[in-house]
C-alpha cells in the first residue's frame, strides 16, 4: 500500500540551512548535509529545500548545496525558490535534485510548467501554491513568498497546472501557516478533489492530530512539516509511530 509521506521542509539562505534542526557544534558548510542526514535517519520520506536567498547571485550557491546533499542521502528531495527557466531546473537536476518546485514564475509564465514537464517529466515538476482564503470555498493564489495577490482562484489554478503537466501540488495555506493551529482542511480537501495529481498539505501543523486530519479528512497524499520538527517537539519516528497507531499507512 502506498504510504502517506512525511516531508520536512528546510529553509536555505546563501547555501546554508537557516531554519531546521539546531546543530550548535557543526560548521556552516556541513549543516545542510547534517540536517538532511538527521531527518533521513529518522525516516523522512522526502525532503524539501526552499531557497529564501534574496539575490540571484546568492542563489547560485544552491547548486553546491544540492550536489552535497545528493552525494550523502538516498531519499528524494525537492528544491524550490527563485526558479526562473528550464536552464535553472536542468542545473539543479543535473546536480542531484529529484524534483523542482516552481511558484511565482509559474504564475507569471505558465508555459514554464508545460516546457519543464515535457522536457524532464511530470514526476519532477512540483507547483507550489500559496493560498489565501477570500470567501466560502474560495481562495486566491498569492505570489512572491505569499506577499502579492495574483487575482487567480486556487481551484482554477490547480486544474490549470495539472493540465500543463505538473506532477504534484505543494499547497500552503497562508492563513494557517505558522499558527500551529492545524492545516486548512477545507482548502486541502477541495484541491485534492479537483485534481488527480498528489497534493502535499502545508502550513499550520501543530500536533500529530493535525497531520492525521489533513491526511484523512483533507485527502492529502503527503504533509510538509517545519515548526513541528524544528522546535524539537516531535521526531519523525514519533510522528510516524503515532500515525501508524491511528491506522495510517506510513513507511517505518
Amino acid at each position, binding site marked *: *500500500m502506498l504510504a502517506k509521506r512525511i516531508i520536512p521542509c528546510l529553509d536555505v539562505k546563501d547555501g546554508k540551512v537557516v531554519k531546521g534542526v539546531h546543530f550548535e557544534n557543526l560548521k556552516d558548510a556541513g549543516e545542510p548535509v547534517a540536517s538532511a542526514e538527521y531527518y533521513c535517519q529518522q525516516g523522512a520520506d522526502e525532503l524539501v529545500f526552499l531557497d529564501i536567498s534574496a539575490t540571484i547571485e546568492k542563489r547560485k550557491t544552491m547548486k553546491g548545496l544540492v550536489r552535497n546533499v545528493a552525494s550523502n542521502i*538516498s531519499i*528524494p528531495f525537492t528544491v524550490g525558490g527563485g526558479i526562473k527557466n528550464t536552464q535553472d531546473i536542468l542545473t539543479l537536476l543535473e546536480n542531484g535534485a529529484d524534483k523542482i518546485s516552481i511558484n511565482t514564475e509559474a504564475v507569471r509564465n505558465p508555459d514554464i510548467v508545460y516546457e519543464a514537464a*515535457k522536457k524532464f*517529466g511530470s514526476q519532477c515538476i512540483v507547483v507550489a501554491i500559496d493560498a489565501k482564503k477570500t470567501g466560502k470555498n474560495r481562495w486566491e493564489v498569492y505570489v512572491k513568498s505569499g506577499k502579492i495577490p495574483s487575482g487567480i482562484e486556487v481551484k482554477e489554478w490547480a486544474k490549470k497546472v495539472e493540465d500543463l503537466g505538473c506532477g504534484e501540488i505543494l499547497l500552503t495555506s497562508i492563513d494557517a501557516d505558522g499558527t500551529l493551529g492545524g492545516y486548512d482542511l477545507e482548502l486541502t480537501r477541495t484541491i485534492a478533489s479537483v485534481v488527480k495529481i*498528489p497534493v502535499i498539505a502545508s502550513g499550520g501543523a501543530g500536533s500529530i492530530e493535525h497531520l492525521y486530519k489533513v491526511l484523512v479528512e483533507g485527502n492529502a497524499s503527503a504533509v510538509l512539516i517545519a515548526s513541528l520538527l524544528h522546535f524539537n517537539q516531535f521526531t519523525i519516528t514519533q510522528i510516524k509511530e503515532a500515525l501508524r497507531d491511528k491506522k495510517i499507512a506510513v513507511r517505518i
Partner: protein
Amino acid sequence: MTGIINYGAGNIFSLFNNIKRLDEKALIISKPEMLSKVHRIVLPGVGAFDEGMLHLTKNCLSEAIIEQVKKGKPMLGICLGLQMLFENSEEGKLKGLSILKGAVRKFPRKKNLPVPHMGWNSVRILKKSLFLKGIQDESFFYFAHSYYSIPEEKNIIYGITEYGFEFTSIVQKENLVGVQFHPEKSGECGFRLIKNFVKMK
C-alpha cells in the same frame, strides 16, 4: 565498470553516486561504442516515453543496447528504463526497444488514487534471485510514475505492487532486470539492489 545511459534530461547523479559508493567505476554513456567497454549497463528513466526512445535512436543507442543484452551483458532498467524494454506504451507513438514482450499502460483514474503514483510503496517478492538477495518481502521503495508495464511472459515477473490493483514492479529475465521504482532513491533497500546488480556478470 558499470555504464549509465545518459539522456541529458535529468538526475543520473544519484545513480552515479550509488555506484561509486560501491567502489565500482561508473561510466556515463552517450555513444554506442562506449557500451562495449562496460561490464553492465543501467538504463535509467526520466521523462516521457517518446522523448526517451527518440534520444536512444537518435544516438544509435537502441540497436547497440539490444545487441549487448542479447550477448548476455547484465542490464538494469529503472522506471522509464524498464518501460522502454517493452514493445509499446500508451504514453507515446514510438516503438519501444522490444527486448521484452508486452505493453505499457497508464494508471486509470480512480477515486483517492492520485496519478502519478508517487511515494513509497511496498513490493511483494514473488521469486528469489541473486538480484533480490537480502531484500525482504514487502520492503518499501520509492515510486514516481504514471504508467506501468504488462509483461506478456508472466514468468519474468519477480515483484508486484498494489495501487488500486497489482502491477509489475520487478522483472527479471536472465541477466536483464527491471524495476519500476527508483532504487537510487530508496534508501538502504534500494542501495542493496544496486549492490546486487553490480555483482552480476
